[in-house]
């Protein structure tokens, strides 16, 4: 390769060697994938959503495959904050890759407590505030659907920690830009979008829903056009950096999100299909930049913001 291009990006004050992050809930606690790739080569790792207390998760079936997509209703199964700190973080901090902890709660106070506790933990580079999990009865998306609730929650978490705050947005809203503005007003350092789209599948032979929880979150290539549109809309109106995600499977998909205005991208469902997806996508972005003689990945997001709708 002739041209030396810059792949490094800075999101919410977190410096990443490349713009490809692994998305929450799709990469476990990192250790599950160690055998398949060099974790040092990821832009950043976002952990499985962590709650104050351990959660068992939802009854099975928890996943069902759909056309070009995957519906899930895991229900935030996780080891809980303290076990995460004691048993999962030591593994993760062996790597040079920034660790972003996805946090979720049923009440505002839980987000605050988790944030205060993680503020003292050196290995953590940032928090992703999950206001978009569609598979829990309380909390998660219940916060993320209303601008006022997002603003209030984010400002409380803001006071609880100095860590960079990324707010993960739900696509299951009327106007995602209003929620993004609320996150910005509350003091977020970045927004990440989209979480999964609410969906449903039915097994006609058994005449039952495909998921035990009936509805779940749709991910995978099926949702990419919706995600791309939302990333473009949000990136066009907020000052905050945007982490774009939703169905990214290839370097070409990732470049589309970067052109739409995202500073970085996250790879989710693709990890299940190909454990090396994130690395291959980062490599593909570099090749794209070289081929098109673009010296810096940060130049890509200048394109989308200039596009204006004609009607």
């Amino acid at each position: 390769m002739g041209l030396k291009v810059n792949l490094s990006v800075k999101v919410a004050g977190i410096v990443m060697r490349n713009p490809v992050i692994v998305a929450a809930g799709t990469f476990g606690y990192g250790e599950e994938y160690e055998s398949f790739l060099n974790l040092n080569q990821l832009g950043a790792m976002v952990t499985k959503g962590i709650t104050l207390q351990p959660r068992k998760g939802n009854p099975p079936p928890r996943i069902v495959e759909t056309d070009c997509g995957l519906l899930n209703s895991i229900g935030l199964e996780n080891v809980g904050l303290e076990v995460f700190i004691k048993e999962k973080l030591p593994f993760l901090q062996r790597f040079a890759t920034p660790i972003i902890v996805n946090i979720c709660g049923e009440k505002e106070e839980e987000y605050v407590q988790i944030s205060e506790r993680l503020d003292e933990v050196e290995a953590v580079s940032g928090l992703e505030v999950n206001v978009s999990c569609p598979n829990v009865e309380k909390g998660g998306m219940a916060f993320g659907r209303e601008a006022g609730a997002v603003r209030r929650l984010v400002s409380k978490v803001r006071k609880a920690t100095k860590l960079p705050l990324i707010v993960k947005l739900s696509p299951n809203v009327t106007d995602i830009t209003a929620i993004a503005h609320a996150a910005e007003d509350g003091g977020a350092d970045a927004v990440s979008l989209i979480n999964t789209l609410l969906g449903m599948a039915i097994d006609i032979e058994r005449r039952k829903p495909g998921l035990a929880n009936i509805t779940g979150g749709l991910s995978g290539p099926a949702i990419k056009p919706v995600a791309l549109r939302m990333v473009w809309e949000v990136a066009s109106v907020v000052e905050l950096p945007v982490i774009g995600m939703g169905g990214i499977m290839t370097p070409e998909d990732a470049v589309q999100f970067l052109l739409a205005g995202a500073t970085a991208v996250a790879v989710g469902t693709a990890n299940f299909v190909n454990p090396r997806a994130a690395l291959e996508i980062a490599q593909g972005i570099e090749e794209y930049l070289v081929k098109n003689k673009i010296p810096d990945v940060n130049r890509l997001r200048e394109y989308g913001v200039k596009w204006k709708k004609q009607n």
Partner: protein
Amino acid sequence: MKKSAKALKPKLRTVKLSELVLMWQGKVRILVNEEVGPSCFRMALEAPQVASEARAGQFLHVRVAAGYSPLLRRPFSVHRISGKLKVESLKLQNIEILYEVVGKGTKTLAEKQVGEELDILGPLGNGFNLPGGLETAILIAGGIGVAPLLALAEEIVQSSKPKVQSRKVDVIIGAKTKKLVLCEEGFKELGCQVRVATEDGSVGYSGTAVDLFKESLSTFNFGVPTEWVASTVYACGPEIMLKKIAEMTYERDIPAQLSLEGRLGCGVGACLGCAIKVKNSKGKGEGDFSYKRICKDGPVFEANEVVWD
């Protein structure tokens, strides 16, 4: 002092094999893809990297199509590791899977031609556990559930040390009908005693594998209750069959290991999609359970830990 059989029951060690062995991802060549029964196929893959590490009960996670339809990989039990005995021909070791065409994924797989490449991940999960004192293994297969049990029979026979510890393998193959009885010859070649049950009675015992197991209970050597329990039941098949075997073996205090099936996502324990309910070891009664991952904590589970809904 006489100890109860329960106290003497060999503790089944949970060996976290997946942490010890190297998992591998890559493209391998298809050597064989032949129909061995109605809609049932045997596929051999040139995968010495995986074959040299794989154990019976583990699985391969196979990407059946390059595109997004189907999107997810499909899990297939290790069915046979060809040439495992010939150490000098390590490079010739192949891995085989046995599958039944039931949906989009397996249909795509059945259409693959010899010489084509397949993207595989493996070996994944924990294999069957062979307790040190194992003398008699009773393998119960239901339908395509026979797939991992042939690999297990191979492993048991190979681990048998003549004169020191001879291990006996009894096999029950259950199928809907004669044409769907798979691997009978394969087990016999290994020296196993094979019994066949068909639901329509077209060959062997008329009934299910569970019926035949129940009827032949007295003929198996489970050891005297006061002695070391040297028998283990290994089963793979439809959930209803596994549930019945779990109940029967529990009542009679026979150790049993089951290879479970489920919808898998990642296959490596990350997505938590393949949850099954298990009893908590420090159980506080009936309602006390937690979820385990079929792909990472299994797919082989001790029969008495599974909670059946």
